[in-house]
């Protein structure tokens, strides 16, 4: 089967659902989220059938590849999207509150369908081996995300988030196009695989413009993965965007950014003149991102902002591994870390969605006494926090173990020493949530009811955290 079929199936699913939504009179739009999730699950199953890249002669062969990295992250994107779609029914009251209702349920339906297009964009992005394809798929995903981030159009925070995201996102798009044109201008190719050979042929004087172009692309990718100093949109956008979108943004879109970064660096790693310089830049980025993400997270009082800074912090750990791509365990470590990150971050967001709906806010203090109001939600959040902090027997721990292993292996002792300090800082801000849930008194004692879908998500994501943490071998071997 041609691997392109998967993305096409996702797009077709999205279009069909859009049509169904347009012609259906059902006021309850939850079925769209469930159908979308079921459809994506079908695509996920499909992805386990034997696949191949587009045939060598075909036009798409120059754009799309099919390797372990793309297979892993296509599935990763699908799973992240399924989880996000399943979070949407629980989020419906918020949507209805902030959407002008020309007709019953108006506008709610599309919110569950648009993620499918982001999903298709990200799936293409993780399989692309050409700058043009990277750009196009990135835009498909990002433009859809602009809409989703600003979806609550009668909520000022959401509008602000969407606008910030739009402006900074457009800026980063500018950077990437500009960078690509410099790279194309000097080397005459946009294909990643053809790049090393093209660079070898270049005269030495052409290296500076080429490096400039690469630097511009790195800037744009740093926006995507929220690396310092291009992370300043993260807390605001995370806080204002609808919670399912925030969770999607912090997981799927970040992962796709890392895949592109890895592909680029692996290709350029074969060219010593350039890789040497890039190595120093990435190491610096990793160090700054670690410091900023972890220390700025400490004083946060809003859960979504906390998770935003935490997402910057985790980008720092991931960049540690990206700086160590010389080790053959680096890419499996990154993949594993991201998979664990998916489970723990999305679990935290699932709990947050329920808690903020019940208590009416996103502050950490809204979690006060959750241990008494809902042992299940508190337990799930405890597990997510433990994993985010890197406590053993969770996916977060094995992820950190692997990343520190490759970093020490590659001699990044400075980063490792820094990492120790930031991990300790992480204990503080993740444990703040645990403190709120168990030490503090609840504002009210009424138990919180949890719907079946939320229970299912908690069970699946929680099982993922523990399973990856106790028996990591299968997931790890999927990347080698």
């Amino acid at each position, binding site marked *: 089967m041609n691997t392109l079929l998967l993305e096409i199936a996702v797009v077709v699913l999205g279009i069909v659902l859009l049509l169904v939504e347009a012609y259906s009179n059902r006021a309850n739009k939850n079925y769209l989220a469930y159908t979308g999730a079921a459809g994506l699950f079908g695509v996920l199953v499909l992805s386990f059938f034997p696949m191949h890249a587009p045939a060598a002669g075909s036009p798409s062969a120059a754009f799309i590849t099919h390797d372990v990295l793309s297979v892993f992250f296509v599935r990763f994107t699908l799973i992240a999207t399924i989880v996000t779609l399943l979070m949407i029914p629980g989020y419906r009251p918020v949507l209805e509150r902030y959407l002008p209702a020309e007709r019953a349920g108006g506008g709610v339906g599309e919110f569950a369908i648009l993620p499918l297009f982001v999903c298709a964009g990200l799936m293409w992005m993780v399989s692309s081996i050409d700058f043009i394809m990277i750009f196009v798929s990135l835009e498909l995903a990002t433009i859809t995300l602009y809409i989703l981030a600003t979806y609550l159009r009668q909520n000022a925070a959401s509008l602000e988030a969407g606008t910030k995201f739009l402006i900074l996102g457009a800026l980063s798009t500018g950077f990437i196009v500009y960078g690509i044109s410099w790279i194309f201008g000097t080397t005459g190719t946009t294909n990643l695989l053809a790049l090393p050979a093209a660079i070898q042929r270049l005269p030495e004087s052409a290296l500076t413009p080429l490096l400039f172009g690469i630097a511009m692309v790195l800037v744009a990718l740093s926006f995507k993965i929220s690396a310092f100093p291009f992370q300043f949109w993260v807390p605001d956008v995370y806080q204002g965007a609808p919670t399912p979108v925030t969770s999607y943004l912090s997981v799927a879109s970040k992962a796709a950014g890392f895949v592109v970064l890895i592909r680029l660096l692996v290709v350029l790693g074969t060219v010593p003149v350039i890789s040497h310089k890039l190595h120093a830049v990435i190491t610096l980025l990793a160090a700054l991102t670690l410091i900023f993400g972890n220390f700025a997270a400490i004083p946060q009082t809003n859960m979504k902002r906390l998770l935003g800074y935490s997402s910057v912090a985790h980008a720092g750990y991931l960049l540690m591994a990206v700086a160590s791509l010389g080790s053959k365990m680096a890419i499996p470590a990154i993949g594993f870390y991201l998979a664990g990150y998916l489970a723990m971050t999305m679990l935290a967001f699932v709990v947050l969605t329920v808690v903020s709906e019940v208590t009416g806010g996103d502050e950490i203090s809204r979690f006060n006494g959750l241990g008494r109001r809902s042992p299940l939600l508190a337990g799930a959040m405890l597990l997510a926090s433990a994993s985010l902090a890197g406590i053993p027997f969770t996916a977060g721990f094995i992820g950190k173990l692997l990343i*520190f292993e490759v970093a020490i292996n590659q001699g990044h002792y400075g980063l490792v020493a820094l990492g120790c300090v930031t991990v300790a800082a992480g204990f503080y801000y993740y444990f703040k949530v645990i403190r709120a849930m*168990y030490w503090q008194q609840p504002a009210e004692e009424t138990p919180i009811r949890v719907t079946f879908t939320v229970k299912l998500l908690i069970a699946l994501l929680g099982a993922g955290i523990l399973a990856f943490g106790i028996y990591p071998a299968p997931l790890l071997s999927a990347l080698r």
Partner: protein
Amino acid sequence: MSLLLILTILLPLAASLLIMVGADPRRTALGAAVANLAAALVLFFAYDRIDGGWQFLSEWKILPKLGINMTLGADGLTLTMLLLATLVTVSALWVAPKVGKHEGLYYISLLFISAGVIGAFASLDVLFLYSFHELALIPTFLMIGIWGSGDRQAAAWKATIYLGLGSFVLLIGLIALYLSIPAGHRTLDLRELDQMAATGAFHPSAWIYLILLVGFGSLVSLFPFHSWAPPAYACAPAPAAMLHAGVLKKFGLYGLIRIALPIFPEAMHELNGLLLLLVVGNILYIGYVTVSQKRLDWTVGYSSVMHMGYIFLGLAALNLIGINGAALLMFAHGLSVAAAFALCGEIRSRTGTLDYAELGGLAKATPVLGLLFGFAAMASVGLPGFANFAGEILVFFGATAYGPAMIIPVIVGVWGVVISAIYMLRAYRNIFWGPIAQRWEGLADIGTGAKWSVILLLVPLMIAGFYPQLILKMVGTALPR
């Protein structure tokens, strides 16, 4: 039999699950703990000392390509620590007072700490040794934060961040150790590590030993990485302090005996001066700090830090006598400090204060409590008849045998015994003797459950004190012959 060893880890976890789904917390937890103690006793006496080595082995492949497997097994040292852990667990659960809020969470936390230490002691793979130990981090945070007394929040934060950082430094040291093995032979299995070190197949740098010393050291509250321990123990509820000070803290020493001694003999020898300096700090500096404490819980907290100095001194002796003494002292100190914290909790729950200035003459109202405290205090000082004495004597003998470099540390150590006699006797006098204040006259004596749970700790302490061979023979199987 290997199944029994696995069960000792699984039982507390299974009991936690049962409590989560609604079983009676106290009964379920105590049931599991008593069953675990029985299992530990069976294993202790079923261990074949003639054969020695690791027994009751079982293994699961976790990351076979990286040479990481979950391997459980036990030798004499493991089983001694297992016995300590299960004894203290039963005692801690038994002595636990009636819990008002979150009763389930209270017992689940204690069970997790217990399962964590048992798993750590029973693991042959260094990564799991480490991982199991970390299981206790969140339960400790919750225990101190929810049910603690005094400035509990600050204490919980300090302990958690300190231990989190310390154990991450330790993890870095372990990864560095792992990477110093030539590629293709990499493993974290203690047996293979020992063998490779013995045959000279790999030479990890002394830096790694230093990192491990700092990592393990901060978990054991080695001077100057000790400052988390006294406030945490002073503020923690008695059962948590008993488990943490009595058992969990021994993990760092256990790790040094298991990893540093066989793999870094040369580095330990070269850097012994540094370790001795810290040991002197532990005994002398912390000793005097302990003397200046004005409350019983802080006195016991600091004294538990101070006594770690003796165990480190035994390790630093780098000979069989010293290490035997250190191991015996680990067992003895674990029991005696747990007894002291249990009694601390009993006094606090009656009087609401542990301040020496407010207490006095309690022995008139609570004679049995006073008697038991006397026993615990004497054990802690190292009176002959208690295992602490045997351990300390061996440590001093071992240290003296090391050579002239040990003269000062041994003198400091002996002086330390005097210091601990001063503060323990002073505590005993201030609380139980002298004129009794009127408001304490109606105090109820120690309850039956608490009484027996302390006796459960003191009896093995005296058995091992009169017949230390019982423990030493077991410990000896783990040490090079």
